[in-house]
């Protein structure tokens, strides 16, 4: 090599060296090709994503078309119209499509529509816009993930829980899959209540293992399980009954003709359904021969054994018979000392091969058990509006009275096999969901109370974080977004949520704002750095808007669409556009920051 190179001219030497395939050259060329391929893959992914935006599953599209929902929608709207007439309330007119799109997107994905989605929807005929957008959202994986997270907060809590036996993310992932498949709600709940196996392997097991008590050898805390089951799946707060009989009239059992107040035994007989559950290193199992659940009742010094019993609807206990009707299980006191003179049918654990919780799941999801369906209707309404039909969200009366809309939606939910997608669609097309949150006439608290205007409610912290993230991009941030962008977004939002604070599972509480939270929005890392020109973020919305050859007024309009999903008023354009004309980049950054800090961006309306 030395000789040959020494014989060559300097020029030929360098040419020769360049053509020699040294490892360094190879590596350099390989890196170049990899970067090139990554870039091409990114561009392809982006173009495919845009195509996906327009390709909607025809089955979902059929499900959300209004004609198929006409009957229930008419009944639903009539119920509200009647209430408004009775209350002498003039409802606000329907809001524009963009406002409704924002409500839908925030409720289902936790973030507002992107500019790309807005432009796409505006290319559709007016009559198809909301249907297509709703269908698009219902098939969007973000919707399944977001709704799963919201439901999981209520069902297993927002905290990481007992680390050894609880995998919250495993539960959320399982739930998201169920929602993606649109599994009937009663089946989802039955799966959770009868789940067996390992929490790491089988997602629904975590419903129970979330209530394991590390201080008691990870035994399942049956009181906490019963409280959660009752609140979430019956819509009844009976937690006070764990210690004493009801003396405030806060609980209601029995029949409509013979209602009665709750007893301490009601709570613990429900808890008894879960008394066979055992959490072992091999997973969650049932001990069919376990001794009957025992508890020290108020005033007693010795525990009392209580067999499982339901507080109402005793006829639905037990497996369905051949003709579809349920057979009641005879009351028994074989292994128990019953102290309460209630009429509950009891289920004897010692003579039954079926795990008690399975019996309970069958009773709970029985089609005649309307509180089960009603509780979910109220929750989905709350998720869509930011405010449930009945407050608090998990305490509905057993025998009524019920507000307009609740029974109509419950009827439809049961009749259509607990179809969550249909329930969401019905609520989305209802007159209250379409109502404007502002009116040309004076609005009173009664308007909001009776849904004669759309209620304003503060966004949840993760919806705020989603709004900020989306404001930094012109295209929707979804699963087709580049992995690096997704990772950056995940980290930033996590930091934002940690700093802003989380409501935990009290997610329908309407709290005000703290000084720390406002400072975070005004000057915090995410709210400021994402919305300014900086190295490393070459494609954020500021740069893209700056490079568009739009007039200042058009820029103002685009920024309003990105953050607030509406166009600015002439007054707003007049106040802001002159600044953007003079300082284009600074003006865009300032406007983005201002809108992110506005109540309009931080509230649902």
């Amino acid at each position, binding site marked *: 090599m030395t000789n040959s190179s020494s014989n060559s001219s300097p020029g030929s030497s360098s040419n020769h060296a360049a053509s020699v395939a040294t490892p360094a050259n190879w590596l350099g060329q390989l890196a170049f090709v990899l970067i090139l391929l990554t870039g091409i893959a990114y561009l392809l992914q982006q173009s495919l994503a845009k195509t996906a935006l327009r390709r909607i599953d025809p089955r979902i599209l059929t499900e959300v078309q209004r004609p198929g929902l006409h009957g229930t929608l008419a009944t639903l709207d009539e119920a509200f119209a009647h209430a408004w007439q009775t209350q002498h309330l003039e409802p606000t007119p329907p809001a524009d499509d963009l406002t409704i799109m924002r409500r839908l997107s925030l409720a289902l994905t936790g973030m507002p529509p992107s500019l790309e989605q807005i432009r796409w929807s505006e290319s559709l005929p007016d009559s198809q816009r909301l249907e297509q957008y709703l269908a698009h959202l219902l098939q969007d994986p973000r919707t399944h993930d977001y709704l799963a997270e919201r439901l999981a907060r209520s069902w297993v809590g927002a905290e*990481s*829980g*007992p680390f050894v036996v609880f995998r919250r993310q495993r539960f959320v992932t399982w739930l998201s899959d169920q929602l993606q498949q649109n599994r009937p709600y009663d089946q989802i709940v039955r799966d959770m209540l009868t789940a067996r196996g390992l929490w790491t392997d089988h997602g629904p097991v975590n419903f129970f293992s979330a209530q394991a*008590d*590390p*201080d*008691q050898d990870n035994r399942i805390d049956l009181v906490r399980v019963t*409280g959660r089951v009752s*609140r979430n799946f019956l819509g009844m*707060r009976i*937690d006070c009954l764990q210690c004493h009989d009801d003396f405030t009239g806060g609980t209601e059992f029995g029949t409509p003709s013979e209602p009665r107040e709750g007893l301490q035994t009601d709570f613990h007989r429900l808890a008894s359904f879960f008394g066979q559950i055992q959490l072992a290193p091999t997973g969650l199992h049932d001990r069919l021969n376990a001794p009957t659940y025992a508890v020290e009742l108020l005033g007693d010094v010795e525990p009392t054994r209580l067999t499982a019993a339901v507080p109402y609807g005793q006829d639905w206990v037990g497996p369905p018979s051949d003709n579809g009707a349920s057979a009641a299980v005879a009351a028994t006191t074989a292994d128990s000392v019953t102290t309460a003179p209630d009429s509950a049918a009891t289920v004897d654990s010692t003579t039954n091969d079926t795990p008690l919780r399975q019996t309970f799941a069958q009773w709970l999801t029985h089609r005649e058990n309307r509180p089960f369906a009603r509780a979910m209707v109220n929750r989905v309404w709350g998720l869509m509006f930011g405010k449930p039909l009945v407050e*608090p969200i998990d305490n509905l009366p057993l025998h009524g009275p019920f507000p307009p809309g609740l029974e109509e939606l419950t009827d439809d939910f049961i009749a259509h096999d607990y179809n969550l997608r249909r329930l969401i669609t019905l609520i989305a097309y209802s007159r209250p969901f379409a109502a404007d*949150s*502002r009116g*040309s006439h004076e*609005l*009173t*608290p009664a*308007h909001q109370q009776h849904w004669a*205007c759309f209620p*304003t409610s503060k966004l949840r912290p993760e919806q705020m974080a989603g709004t900020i993230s989306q404001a930094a991009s012109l295209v929707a941030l979804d699963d087709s977004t580049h992995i690096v962008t997704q990772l950056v977004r995940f980290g930033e939002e996590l930091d934002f949520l*940690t*700093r802003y*604070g*989380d409501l935990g*599972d*009290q997610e329908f*509480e*309407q*709290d*005000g*704002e*703290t*000084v*720390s*939270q*406002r*400072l*975070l929005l*005004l*000057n*915090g890392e995410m709210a*400021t*750095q994402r919305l*300014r020109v900086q190295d490393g973020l070459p494609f954020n919305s500021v740069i893209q808007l700056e490079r568009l050859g739009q007039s200042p007024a058009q820029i103002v309009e685009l920024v309003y669409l990105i953050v607030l999903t509406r166009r600015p008023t002439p*007054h*707003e354009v007049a*106040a*802001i556009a002159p*600044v953007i004309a003079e300082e284009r980049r*600074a003006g865009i*950054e*300032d*406007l983005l*920051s*201002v809108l992110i800090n*506005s*109540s*309009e961006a931080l*509230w649902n309306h």
Partner: protein
Amino acid sequence: MTIHSHSHSDPNCQSAWHLSRRSWLHSLAWGSACWLTPLAETLGRIHHEDLQRDSLAARQIARRLRPAKSLIVIWLQGGPSQLETFDPHPGSPSAEGSLAIPTRVPNLQFSDNLPLLAERADRLSIIRSVTSEEGDHERAIHNMMTGYRPEPTLIHPALGSVICHATQSWDNATDLPRHVSILATGQSSRGGYLGPQYDAFRTYDPANRVPDVEARVDDPRFQRRLQWLTQVVEPEFQRGRLSNPQLAATADTIRQATRLMSSEQLAAFDVTGVSPTEQKRYGDTAFGRGCIAATQLIQAGVRCVEVTLPGWDSHANNHTFQRNNCAILDPAVAAMLDDLAARELLDSTLVLIAGEFGRTPKLNVAGGRDHWPHGFSVVLAGGGIQGGRVIGETDPAPPIEKTGSRLKLVDPHPVENLHATILHLMGIDYQEVIQTPIGRPLKISEGQIIDQLLS
């Protein structure tokens, strides 16, 4: 004109005691002035001590006359081991080799991990028998911070939030938040059902600026942003819409936030002016700086400050974990107590040192100690607390499979007793019933005063 003209007709009346209006006012003025003298202070102290010797009721009255003004919570997140801190059992099976040292108080030992606090044990009162029913971190933190076990339908307010709520009418307007959490975590004090205005203001290592109080753009641009926000965008949103209290409060919050951004009182958070020698005295750690800032904030009029030292969750290698954390805790709290005393703030400032639970009296296979809420230590200082006291006693070798009342625990005190005592020391009627947002009347605390701390 005499005040008591009828006195002349009373043979038992001594005319020398009769006062004219002028002489009465004269006496009143002198009397008032006398209360400003050291003599009056001494008399007041004697009077206070007399009362302390009386019944508990009288002591409670005395406490209300001179309540502590401020609270510092040293929050040891993760659950410190009582055996390697304030309740060593040297030579016993539960010590697992941990050592103890004598303290300034006769017959009182601390872990050898806390030599500086041992020298100041006469300022500290230790409750070695605190119990709770919660062995999970998140639930136990809620329990210890609020005095209530977690409930599904109600979020209880943290101790600092309760104090700020109960004493809001006592405080003068200040730019600074009244409730501050230094080295804040996701579990920092929350206002709960009292509302987010009682949440602790969150800040981090005082070596850095208070978070988010500096605008990211120059002042003209920041002012332009505020002007667009408050005069263009917000009015447009509120037009034609029904307002509600939270929405209406937005303008106030923006005003408070911007006022804080430009406040000179922010200097109370700043420790950069503290000499390196002083910082070293506090241990030259983030936690140490937090304790410096806490002292400064209390001096500036902040009512409740929480400083968090995390990392006590020693499921493995317990002794090293505890020793390392104590090396941070010991100099910082010792220096803080010294400085509070030097600035004559210790009598009016209650200091609480606590975590969410203790740790098991037996090492696990990984050399760690697990969660133990069945008898752990909490320390109080200042705020009128008599130092050098020990309340309760733990079993040097408790069977860890047993819990609750079956354990040999002398004078056990559930967490709520600690809250009742602290609230009482702050002059707050802890038995007052508050109507919660869910319509359920609830006492501020369900606990009982730990009498021995006040005697």
